[in-house]
């Protein structure tokens, strides 16, 4: 699914990622944990194609294709999804209209027929209900006046509708209460299949209680310094990053 080889990236000439190697096979969920400033979010942005990060070395292959050569929309059309840490508000853009435009853009790129308004609304309402979102969140402007938790749920709704092959969740747990955390976890778990992989970026163990990862990687100073199973997350929670970083050094 995703193969990252010696990935290096910089922002305004300051190196952030300093050689990341990571393979996420089909059907697996990998967690990336690490202290503030370790490069977790940069990795998410670089993978999704944000222009303000310069890739200075390495390669990323997504389903056999060169991910770094694609425009952001092409990456999404190919099945990559980034759940933003801080989703933007779009005043004047209706949520339903936005979701339908996105879904149809992706469907068009994949050679599927576009959905008309009625068919889309049926699908969107079902997806919203499964995430315990009121129907009126579809009628409102994208993220405008949404609480922090609603914005995150809206990200998961977009994911549920676009059905990506690889989802990158960038600290989706931040700002969520316990119930919302469970709903987000259920949203991701509902997509779990042999054809769905995820990269879950988080500071904390608690999201991983709901989305149990196959692998956990510790990122520090732009490199993965340790990898392990789900138990590694619990070890980090108990002992802190400093201990693991010191051990790896």
């Amino acid at each position, binding site marked *: 699914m995703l193969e990252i080889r010696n990935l290096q990236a910089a922002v305004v000439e300051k190196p952030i990622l300093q050689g990341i190697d990571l393979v996420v096979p089909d059907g697996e969920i990998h967690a990336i944990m690490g202290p503030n400033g370790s490069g977790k979010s940069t990795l998410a942005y670089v993978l999704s194609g944000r*222009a303000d990060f310069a890739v200075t070395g390495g390669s990323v292959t997504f389903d056999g294709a060169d991910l770094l050569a694609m425009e952001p*929309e092409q990456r999404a059309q190919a099945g990559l999804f980034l759940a933003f840490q801080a989703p*933007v508000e779009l005043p*004047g853009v209706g949520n339903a209209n936005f979701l339908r435009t996105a879904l149809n*853009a*992706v469907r068009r790129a994949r050679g599927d027929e576009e959905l008309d308004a009625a068919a889309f609304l049926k699908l969107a309402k079902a997806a919203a209900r499964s995430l315990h979102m009121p129907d009126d969140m579809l009628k409102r402007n994208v993220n405008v006046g949404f609480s922090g938790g609603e914005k995150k749920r809206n990200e998961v709704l*977009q994911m549920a509708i*676009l059905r990506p092959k690889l989802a990158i969740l960038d600290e989706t747990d931040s700002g969520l209460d316990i119930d919302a955390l469970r709903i987000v976890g259920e949203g991701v778990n509902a997509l779990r299949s042999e054809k769905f992989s995820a990269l879950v970026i988080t500071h904390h163990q608690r999201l991983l209680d709901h989305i149990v990862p196959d692998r956990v990687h510790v990122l520090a100073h732009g490199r993965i310094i340790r990898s392990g199973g789900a138990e590694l997350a619990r070890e980090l929670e108990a002992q802190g990053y400093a201990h693991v970083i010191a051990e790896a050094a």
Partner: protein
Amino acid sequence: MNIVPNQVLPPHATSAEPFLARYRGLRAGLPGPRAPREAAADLLRRRGLPGPRDEAWKYTNLKPLTELQFHAALTDAGDHPSPVALPHLGALAESPRVVFVAGRYRADLSQLPDQITARRFAGHLDTDAAPEHDQLLALNTLLAEDGALLAVAAGIDAGTLLLVHMGADLSGTPAAFHPRHSVHLGAGAALTLVEISAGQGTYLHNPVLNIDLQAGARLAHLRLQIESPHSFHIGAVHAAIAENAAYDSFSLILGARLARSEIHARLSGARAHAALNAAQVLRGVQHADFTTIVSHDAPCGTSRQTVKNVLDNHARGVFQGKIEVARAAQKTDGYQMNQALLLSPHAEIDCKPQLEIFADDVKCSHGATVGELDADQLFFLRSRGIPQAEARGMLVRAFLSEAVDLIRHDAARALFDDALNAWWEAQAP
């Protein structure tokens, strides 16, 4: 005595001589009394066309207009009905309409409801048809030949009426049209007037529309300017709004190479209301100037202006909004907001708000913002698979929606949406 016109013009003035020459040629055949036209001719001889040296025309230069010769005399071109494709009318395709083609009323294309009295302009010009400092109005007064005089009797709701003008050149020669329209609503009458200015080729469309709203009358005036990209649209609306009457206008300006749209709204009765909302969406080397003068003459009036400019390439947008509050107009509530979105580093917006307040108990506010598309919003949309051009279009539409959503007439709003979509699709790669 013959006066050589240019000798009496102030330095740097733009001569109106091409239009004065046309007037001299047409004079004998123009309808109605001669005096107001002569006054207009005198003003234009002395002052020339308005230009950057006039305070109200600082940002808009009509010089390109004088580089063309509008030879064709309208009277010669008129009554030869030829098939004409009307612009897209959407859900309004069945609405009653008054249609002008190349400045001429076309009965064969028009269809009037019973509730509206319509006459053709026959040269009747009000006494103040060429006030000093209003050369735009004078230009229309000088050469007005045709127009629609529409009236709705007191208490009648006349529904929706289209006023369509189709401009055209005359067999390849630039043409000029100066229609003079009026709308009169009796006390308590109501009308939705959807005005569409479209066309093909090189021409000047110089319409003047006088609006008279009696007490409690309500006019929704929804204007779509989609003139030919080679054309000039230099027009003015003069609205007089009596007590409790409401003039609610929205202007969507997409067309013409050079456009100046003036709205003068005079709130002459207590509790009168005027809304002068607009969006100018321009590209290439288009220049469009939306200039408003709202005169609060009576107490408790309200005025609202939300004006948006979206400018791409080398386009230039101008908004001048003047609010005058007379001493008697206590408790006036005026609001004006101008926002511009620049899609290119070469685009330019000029914004001039002006408040002249002589009453002491009023609420007047204005604001202006200029920005570009938000990179985070654009990336967010693209990260969801939406191609860049489509994503930009969505954000531009979102920017405009605050103004366009003020159109309460569903069919008209849908028509304006269609026009915006067509504009965007013509641009997308």
